[in-house]
């Protein structure tokens, strides 16, 4: 399972080659290594997201979580790598597959899980649900349910940074599906026109719900979608947290220095369906298993930690146990916490 060195590409036509599938000697530049502390931290953070999402999936199956629930399993390296490039005041905004972003931003797993169960201790007092959570304190601006809507909003966050003359950057996430929305290009135009500090992070997990990118996009290299606006972009192996961090740092610096927006296309993959109700008939089991076994973002880090003797199996098991404890605590809280008081129906409509 040597993650970043094996297998010729294109065994399955519908799987797009990602950087991780290339043999090491084909890599254009070596991926900068993480320090021991960083490696252990990203392992723990990605694992927290993985375990949280697994638990959310279970709780959905038990009827404790309702409505739509979009799990982030498989894509953990993207938010965890990007989070390492943030400084205080930098904003994060995304769509509805947002649990990972919130945990990466440092939001309390109890508050997130309680929102999933629609309880009063949730981040939105139970009134937002899975797709709509916010934390002004942690710089997380949602959690938006309409595909593509967060792109102008994130551009507006960047506009505010520019207006105030600070060097903060807006990290605006969207998917390969949203990349075909008109408002994305309206935003690209304005961002480059006014040199707004926004990194557009396209999480290309290959499927917009059930439609593969090849079937929906006339051009599938989404990093080039800013070319006609002169926005630089690059494709990044979104399964390798080191590559994400390196590319993210470069993009964030570009924005901080006042050069305008930057596009990062993260080549990633979701293991689960689009939402909990997705039977996933549009791809093969083999395709999923192949990514899982060869490119899993957490397994990559785990193997490196062991191979470099930066951690022992035992230590990693302890990390897993502590993460599971945090998730179980969140789950317990989310089940025990009462539903919102009926009077909350009428609050927060207007300030």
């Amino acid at each position, binding site marked *: 399972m040597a993650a970043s060195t094996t297998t010729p590409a294109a065994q399955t036509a519908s799987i797009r080659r990602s950087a991780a599938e290339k043999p090491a000697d084909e890599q254009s530049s070596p991926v900068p290594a993480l320090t021991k502390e960083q490696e252990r931290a990203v392992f723990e953070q990605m694992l927290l997201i993985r375990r949280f999402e697994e638990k959310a999936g279970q709780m959905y199956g038990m009827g404790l979580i309702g409505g739509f629930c979009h799990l982030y399993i498989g894509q953990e390296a993207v938010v965890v790598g990007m989070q390492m490039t943030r400084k205080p005041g930098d904003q994060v905004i995304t769509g509805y597959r947002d649990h990972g972003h919130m945990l990466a931003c440092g939001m309390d797993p109890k508050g997130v899980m309680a929102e999933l169960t629609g309880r009063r201790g949730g*981040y*939105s007092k139970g009134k937002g649900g899975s797709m709509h959570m916010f934390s002004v304190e942690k710089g997380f601006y949602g959690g938006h349910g309409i595909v593509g*809507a967060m792109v102008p909003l994130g551009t507006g966050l960047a506009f505010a940074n520019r207006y105030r003359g600070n060097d903060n950057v807006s990290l605006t996430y969207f998917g390969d599906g949203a990349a075909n929305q*008109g408002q994305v290009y*309206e935003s690209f135009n*304005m961002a480059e026109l006014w040199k707004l500090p926004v990194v557009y992070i396209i999480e290309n997990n290959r499927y917009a719900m059930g439609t593969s990118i090849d079937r929906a996009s006339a051009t599938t290299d989404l990093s080039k979608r800013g070319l006609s606006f002169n926005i630089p972009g690059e494709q990044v192996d979104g399964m390798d947290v080191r590559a994400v961090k390196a590319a993210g740092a470069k993009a964030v610096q570009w924005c901080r220095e006042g050069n305008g927006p930057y596009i990062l296309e993260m080549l990633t993959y979701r293991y689960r369906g689009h939402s909990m109700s997705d039977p996933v008939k549009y791809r093969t089991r083999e395709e999923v298993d192949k990514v899982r076994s060869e490119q899993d973002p957490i397994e990559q880090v785990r193997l490196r930690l062991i191979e470099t003797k930066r951690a022992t199996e035992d230590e990693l098991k302890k990390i897993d146990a502590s993460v599971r404890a945090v998730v179980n605590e969140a789950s317990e809280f989310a089940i025990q916490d009462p539903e919102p008081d009926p009077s909350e129906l009428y*609050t927060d409509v207007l300030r």
Partner: protein
Amino acid sequence: MPIQVLMPALSPTMEKGNLARWVKKEGDAVKAGDVIAEIETDKATMEVEAVDEGTLGQILVPEGTEDVAVNTPIATIFAEGEEAGAPAAAGTKARQGQGNGSKSSQQAKGAESLPLAAPDQPETKQAPAPAEPKSAVAEPPKPATVPEPDVPEGTEMVTMTMREALRDAMAEEMRLDPDVLVLGEEVAEYQGAYKVTQGLLQEFGARRVIDMPITEHGFAGLGIGAAMAGLKPIVEFMTWNFAMQAMDQLINSAAKTLYMSGGQMVCSVVFRGPNGPAARVAAQHSQDYSAWYSHIPGVKVIAPYTAADAKGLLKAAIRDQNPIIFLENEILYGHSFLVPKLADFVLPIGKAKIARPGGDVTIVAWSMGMTYALKAAEELANDGIEAEVIDLRTLRPMDSATVVQSVMKTGRCVTVEEGWPQNGIGAEIAARVMVEAFDYLDAPVTRVTAEDVPMPYAANLEKLALPSVPKVVDAVKAVCYR
């Protein structure tokens, strides 16, 4: 036969203009397309082009003349072979000069497509073409004679157009709060497609008054994002018709975020621009969004009629912490009203106003609807019916208490709106009055609305499609059983 050059209408709502300068002198040769004069309107300075060839014969209106009515002869042109100095006879062919936007370009979206003539006023005989340009209703009613309830007694009142009042409101708030800024198409260098933002760029600079690309969906979202980050943007839509491109952002991102975030994420943003039927611009550019936006929890919807209300309510809107839909009216932009001369005139959002007291029937209107309502009330008074006219001013939250109180006194209620009948504001008022004043009603609540059709272009059909003073008078007489 000498050709008369007439004072042209350069916008659908223009009724008069100033003859700023003659570019050609008497005796000069003119070709079609030559600029012969410059005219100032309340929106812009425009060039007038000759449409005929010949010699500029006589200048009938000297330069510097103010308030020249549209269709006034301003000069004569002699065709080749005709003698200069021949009197402009009764048989003179009349030709309107042609406005040309090249100087102060009127080529913006919407503005460009605006035709020259406005519909004929109701209840006048069809004038020979070209029709006398007039706003869609009769004479603008005189400034309210009722004392402004929100103004201290003895306050000096100054005459001001709706356009100026809106501009002053923005400028005053921008002076007070550095986080207030204006975004929109043509708001900065062009000075506003309807000149509402005139002078703001000069006073506040390009950092705070920003021209947007033609990107309603995108810049509405950008404004909302900036508001989430704590700024207080005023987002101008050139007209509300174009905001349909942005509706998802207005409703899903602006209106719902406070609720969905459990009260965390404040979005203080004002969306403003002209709403409602304009004049002769047909279905896509002529409709009333009052009912659309007032359907939505999470926004406040304001639709003022007077310049004073516009100023006081826009200042309140900018200070408000919620997303505000501020519906102005193009035809009212040029109308003058009395505005209190106060350092900081702010009105409460959500309070209706009794614009004219009366005991026989309650007429409820807002924005442009008030012009029909007030004029109808005058006519009805001649017939011995005293109507109480209520100006809602804010549509959400709606001050139905003021309406209900009035209906308890009059027992009759007529609503007036330029929107369509189904699910309109009038329907909402009827429902509330039925529930809250059922026992006081002496007649069914009756609605005067636009006809249930897309807005037609033809002048006669447009007039038929809109509410009118006679329609209001008839509705009132019906509920009074007269």
